[in-house]
């Protein structure tokens, strides 16, 4: 890039404006190119998928709590039908479909679309003072490709043999010999990956090129940094999985054997006799390609969550974040390291000592930036004037929950302790602590925090408390017992764990997990009511109800097409709260230095691009 101006070429900020004139309903709300509408589309679709994925898991929890007993409600058994639940008892194959699709939907259709598609899309252009994303049409395409991927995934439940059932990891050869649903899964994944790639390119260009005047990289809110690192992870890690997906598709549809070694014998018959496959492939190759994506994917799930939490912590402690630059460097280092730890998912496949030494060393190294980020956030509380608003409660809960998730990664990252814990419920407890009580709590925090920006109204505080406290307690009573089940040696993905004496020993914990999960669903009712009711009936608030400093609060609520009535100019860092010698306790990024003491935005002299 020859242009060394920190804000990119001035043309980039104006050239995009062509697509902003459409007004018909279809173009305004369905095939919208406005980042805010697309963000809301992503958000609502993602929340629906999140709830659907949760429902799948609640079904599985019945079989795990009451193995081989009929479902409690006859209508449910009838709905599932005789193939999926003969006599009301979940069938083992259907259980595996539920497991595989729970993982796939939660990760690729629920959490990432909300964390990146919804929050990234809605908030990033506002926070950098841009009128929209750099490529609005690409943005629209990204959503609709994601939507198609979701429809394909859902439709796969209804094809002969049902949906994919080889786990969200789809390890061959199991996935190669699986029923048709696996093919649909692969096609669906190609769509979802394509969507992520389109989105990530857009984010990178937008953040690099379209920052408001004065908004240098180290004045960016940490959330934008988190999204930038996330976009690079998506851009660089997904292509290998897309390639792997196509290879597996070739194996399944065109009879190649990229992932099929020679000499397979399936059902006591040589596989070559029944299919004529040639062999010579490697079952482990898929695992390398899959985890090359799926480990950075963990940071795709967690970085935006950290970004949200950072915003809310700064805003609600009324002071700057502790170690802002350290946070940024740690996030970049985390992103880089996440590309060279993937094989710690494969310690039990028989890799050599050199490889396992390398990967457990990198895994220990990557724990350091995570510890730094967490420490910065917790130290940020010191000296604050902490407001316990609903978003802050969720953000605060994120910190210890993510800590548990991160710390329980340590014994899994060392080969020797992984020996006992690999593939057990301990692993499930570990990554769910990162993603569910971790990321999902942060996503809730973000919803409560930016809701006033999106709608101009606040969500109810009472319903927020009714949502927060049971959710926090139940998340823990779901995932904490899993550590003990894993310690007992109980393997994951078991249709009926009472087959094993070590499974029967921890069966009471399994009951506790199931009941907590069902109650967690009930605990989401206040949120659902709050979410929809506040849209029209919530308390009306001004443009900056949290008295925040970052640029999204300089726009009207909800922001109009083009976002800012006048494009803002930035004069300071993102978290200038409680600056000594000033009357207000916050100093917005766009407030001009002379008027900063009033804490009110002043009109920049430059007219807007629109």
């Amino acid at each position, binding site marked *: 890039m020859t242009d060394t101006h920190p804000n990119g070429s001035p043309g980039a900020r104006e050239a995009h404006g062509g697509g902003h004139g459409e007004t018909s309903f279809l173009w305004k709300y369905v095939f919208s190119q406005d980042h805010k509408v697309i963000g809301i589309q992503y958000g609502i679709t993602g929340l629906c998928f999140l709830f659907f994925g949760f429902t799948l898991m609640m079904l599985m929890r019945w079989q795990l709590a009451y193995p081989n007993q009929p479902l409690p409600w006859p209508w449910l058994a009838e709905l599932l039908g005789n193939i999926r639940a003969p006599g009301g008892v979940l069938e083992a194959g259907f259980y595996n479909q539920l497991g595989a699709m729970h993982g796939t939907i939660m990760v690729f259709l629920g959490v990432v679309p909300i964390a990146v598609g919804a929050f990234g899309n809605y908030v990033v252009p506002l926070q950098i003072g841009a009128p929209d994303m750099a490529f609005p049409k690409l943005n629209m395409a990204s959503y609709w490709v994601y939507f198609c991927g979701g429809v394909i995934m859902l439709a796969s439940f209804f094809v002969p043999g049902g949906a994919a059932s080889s786990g969200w990891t789809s390890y061959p050869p199991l996935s190669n010999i699986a029923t048709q649903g696996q093919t649909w899964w692969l096609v669906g994944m190609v769509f979802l990956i394509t969507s992520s790639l389109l989105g990530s390119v857009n984010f990178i260009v937008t953040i690099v090129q379209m920052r408001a005047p004065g908004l240098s990289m180290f004045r960016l809110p940490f959330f934008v940094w988190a999204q930038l690192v996330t976009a690079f992870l998506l851009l660089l890690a997904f292509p290998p999985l897309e390639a792997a997906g196509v290879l597996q598709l070739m194996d399944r549809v065109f009879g190649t054997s990229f992932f099929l070694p020679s000499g397979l*014998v399936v059902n006591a018959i*040589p596989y070559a006799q029944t299919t004529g496959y040639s062999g010579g492939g490697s079952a482990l190759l898929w695992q390398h390609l899959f985890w090359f994506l799926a480990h950075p994917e963990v940071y795709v799930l967690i970085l935006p969550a950290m970004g949200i939490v950072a915003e809310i912590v700064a805003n609600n402690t009324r002071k*700057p974040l502790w170690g802002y630059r350290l946070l940024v460097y740690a996030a970049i280092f985390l992103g880089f390291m996440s590309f060279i730890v993937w094989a710690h998912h494969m310690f039990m496949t028989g890799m050599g000592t050199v490889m396992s030494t390398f990967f457990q060393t990198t895994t220990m190294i990557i724990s*350091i930036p995570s*510890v730094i980020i967490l420490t910065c956030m917790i130290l940020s509380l010191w000296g604050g004037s902490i407001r316990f608003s609903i978003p802050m409660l969720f953000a605060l809960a994120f910190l210890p929950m993510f800590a*548990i998730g991160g710390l329980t990664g340590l014994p899994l990252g060392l080969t020797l302790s992984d020996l006992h814990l690999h593939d057990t419920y301990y692993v499930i407890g570990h990554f769910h602590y990162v993603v569910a009580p971790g990321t999902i709590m942060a996503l809730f925090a973000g919803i409560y925090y930016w809701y006033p920006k999106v709608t101009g109204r606040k969500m109810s505080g009472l319903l927020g408390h009714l949502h927060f406290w049971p959710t926090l307690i139940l998340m823990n009573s779901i995932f904490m017992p899993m550590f003990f089940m894993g310690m007992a040696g109980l393997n994951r993905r078991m249709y009926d764990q009472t087959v094993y004496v070590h499974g029967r020993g921890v069966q009471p914990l399994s009951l506790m997990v199931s009941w907590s999960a069902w109650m967690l669903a009930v605990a989401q009712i206040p949120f659902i009511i709050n979410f929809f009711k506040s849209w029209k009936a919530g308390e009306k608030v001004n443009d900056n109800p949290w008295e925040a400093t970052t640029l999204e609060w300089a726009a009207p609520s909800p922001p109009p097409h083009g976002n800012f009535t006048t494009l803002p100019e930035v004069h300071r860092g993102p978290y200038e709260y*409680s600056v000594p010698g000033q009357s207000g306790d916050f100093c917005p990024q766009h407030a001009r230095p002379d008027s900063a003491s009033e804490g009110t935005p002043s009109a920049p002299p430059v007219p807007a691009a629109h």
Partner: protein
Amino acid sequence: MDPVKFGYWFPADVSTHGPSVDLLIDYVHYLAVALFVGWGIFMLYCLIRFRQRPGHKAQYELPHFKGSKYAEVAVALIELVLLLGFSIPVWASIRYELPRTDAPDKVVVRCIAEQFAWYFWYPGPDGEFEPASADRIKPSNPLGLRDPSRDAVSKDEFHFPVNRPIVVYVTSRDVIHGFNIPLMRVKHDAVPGLNIPIWFQATKTNDEIFAAMSPERLRIGPALVGRKEPYIAMEAVKAADGSDLLKSGDTFVFGEALVKGLTGAGVQELSVKLKFPVELACAQLCGNGHSGMRAAVSIDTEEQFAAFIAGKMAK
């Protein structure tokens, strides 16, 4: 030691390398708990002391924290010690320092996994494995051996002698399975196309473990029908007509008739012990029968093991 008591921390361990695995898991958790409690106390203190209230103002500049830097360096150092002192060397020794090929007392077994069974293949008296070919596979010769009478093959029952190094070549012939004996801290993927040796050594026999374990009360229900693992009854049960259904000490398998009889006699829970309390579980999702892919592990005395091999050869 009671291998049936689960749910709080590790199960019992009957392998030579297990204690080092457990020790590392303990150490990592000490570190984790220390960090978590440290963070937690600091966080709670901040939340109380710095809560928003009239007259309280946030500080723009923070005092210079040195503690966090020390804590981070300490974490890194502890991780380094765990890595260099425990994980890397012990892992290398249990995974890659296989017993020497000429070690006189080692036992070599091949384990072949398939959907949803485990085959354990022992060489005959000649000490050699017969050549095998998939084309010869039939019910009487499940591994397709050239001469099945020259080797011993056991399905879903894994016998090996105590106090001797056991080398197992683990592979699969269809999908990926996971060779896992929780009570021995043994786990390795069975990957088709790869034939990877692992080794371990047991410290207790099946009989010793059996004697140490307390009986378990098993809930009687249709789910038990078809379970292939043998149990030993710890109490006598009379059928509804007064005849003996089970005598204390009987070895039995849950068949349809027995479960029906027990249900008919109004038995809801039965006190039993597993005949082979050490279990081999499949650790990798391998299809619809995954959770039932269980094998019994019998850690034998020399005599028992010799008798087992002789019995398999005679078949």
